């Protein structure tokens, strides 16, 4: 399970940012710092899928980056299956699989080499790596193109390779940052099927998205972040109830509206 509580992160503003400071009305800007994430908490249990929602620039990516150990939080607690991510990032990384929509591959390496490289970096030995890789090729139907260079692959093939790369080390939890953004319907379907598979295996998944139909399809729980603060945490049913609408888009807008009115 994943537990996140009271997460905070601020970034120092550079000169470029300061120039357009006057025009900015974002309440998170303060003196030399931009408080990107101010107070974010959520949790996700075994076998659950948590959907992270929020407008652009709300702090979703920053939150997920802290969760995946790329960024160090200024304050707050993150635990993955009992491991303190902030204190022991190296151990936590072995337990987390991360994939974002903007993730790329090494173009001059084949799909297989890309996947194996990350397997080796995760300290897997040759035998285990080979078995695990073949299992993934089979599962994601990749055998026809694993020996092609990544630069010659189609978007869908690339996304499959990326998925395989993210879970090569059999992570205990999976974090996805807008995994379907910019993908066509076929590739999106691959991602959705992948999340469903993880769910059936009991692996907790956290993913951020702007597509509410995906939330409806996959998630047990929903967390909404607005201007760096968690403003909703609960099940899908509670989300509809709090948002006062059966239509998720409306419910989402109502929740945001309500918060800004308070």
């Amino acid at each position, binding site marked *: 399970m994943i537990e996140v509580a009271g997460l905070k992160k601020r970034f120092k503003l550079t000169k470029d940012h300061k120039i357009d400071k006057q025009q900015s009305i974002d309440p998170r800007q303060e003196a030399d710092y931009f408080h990107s994430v101010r107070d974010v908490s959520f949790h996700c249990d075994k076998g659950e899928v948590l959907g992270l929602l929020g407008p652009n620039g709300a702090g979703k990516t920053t939150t997920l980056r802290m969760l*995946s150990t*790329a960024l160090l939080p200024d304050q707050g607690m993150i635990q993955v299956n009992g491991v303190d991510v902030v204190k022991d990032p190296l151990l936590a990384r*072995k337990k987390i699989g991360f994939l974002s929509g903007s*993730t790329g*591959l090494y173009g001059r*390496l084949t799909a297989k080499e890309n996947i194996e*490289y*990350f397997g080796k970096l995760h300290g897997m030995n040759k035998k285990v790596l080979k078995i695990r890789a073949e299992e993934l090729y089979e599962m994601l139907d990749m055998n026809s193109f694993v020996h092609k260079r990544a630069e010659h692959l189609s978007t869908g093939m690339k996304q499959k390779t990326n998925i395989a790369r993210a879970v090569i080390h059999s992570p205990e939890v999976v974090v996805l940052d807008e995994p379907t953004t910019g993908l066509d319907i076929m590739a999106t379907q691959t991602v959705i099927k992948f999340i469903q598979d993880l769910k059936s295996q009991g692996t907790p998944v956290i993913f951020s998205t702007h597509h509410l139909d995906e939330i409806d399809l996959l998630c047990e729980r929903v967390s909404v972040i607005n201007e760096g603060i968690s403003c909703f945490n609960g099940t899908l049913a509670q989300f509809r109830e709090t948002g006062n609408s059966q239509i998720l888009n409306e419910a989402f807008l109502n929740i945001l509206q309500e918060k800004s009115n308070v």
Partner: protein
Amino acid sequence: MFEVFKKEIKELLRDKKTLLFVVALPVLIFPILFALMGYLMSQATIEAEQKIHVYAITGSEYAPEFSEKIMFHKNFQLSDTKYKTVDEMKDAVKSGDLDVGILIHNNARTTLSEGIQSDWTVVFNDSSALNFIYKRVNDALNSFSEILQAEKFEQLGVTKEQSIALLNPIKLEKIDTADKRENLGEKLGAIIPYLLIPLVLAGASYPAIDLGAGEKERGTLETLLLTPVTRTELVLGKFFTVLVSSLATACITVVSMGFWASVAGRFFDAQIITEVMGAIGVVDLSLILLMLVPLAGIFSSLVLAISIYARTFKEAQNYMGPLSMVAFMPLLVAMMPNMELTMNTAMIPITNVALAIKELIKGTVDYSMVGMIFAATLVLAGVLMSFCVHWFKKESVLFR
């Protein structure tokens, strides 16, 4: 760390663009360019040597021996038109009808007997770098002057030996303690680091851009950071890749220069070069390469740090330009004539390595100084490398 290194090298070897810069440039393109340059230069020299100058002479009756000599000179051809004044000759030279005009105003024999100089004027265009006109006219004039001098001395009853002593009272014999290697090393030794050091930099910067900014642009950096490999190991893996590429460029260049020099040696009479090359020897040659190792370390750290900072390929390339300017300045200092390796110049990074290489080629090196420079450069490389490692851990650099 080794996995990172192995993968980076594999990827690098599959990149045609980098291979072009690291291998093809020093092995093929440079020698071809140099050969072409040499060919054009020699062609220009031969052409200038063989050129026939159209000349006009006024007052030839005042100096018959001189005009005869010019007339029978294979490079001079008498113009059909006659010119009276300097201005007429000037116009003719400008319009291209004439290459050189000679005006003899008075009889040299008469003026000499009167104890004064005879006035002559020579009109030609002296703008070309390779010009033999003045030298050829002057040669003919000197031999005529010698005839006049000999006649005069004979009149005065001076013997031949006496006349030589009179004209040149002191005979100076020059004994040069610098051997061939030192002489040539002074010239060649300035050029070789000038070729090698920028190549070390270029060999580092092409892969470095790919390894730092390239990872950011392709979106692979973030996933790399999420592997249970410490950032120190990641950056060191990258650093050694850049270092190897940089040194490989230098080694390939040295080997290819040696190869082409030996090829050239068979076709042309380049005995001095072969001799000097032979005199440098294995020890000095390996010392030259050894000096390049910490220097490559400095460059690798710098370009990698820049590349990690940059968001995109383009941004990284923009930073590389000024960096190569910075690297060239100390090289220019080392290129200045009479620049020697002293305690002061040994303190300037890059300059000291360039000067040490020059001294090694000249064979006049103080080995303890080389050791000191090596150590100092190594320390600087170490400092920059640890800076690079520190740099790679900063969130404000990685996630700009």
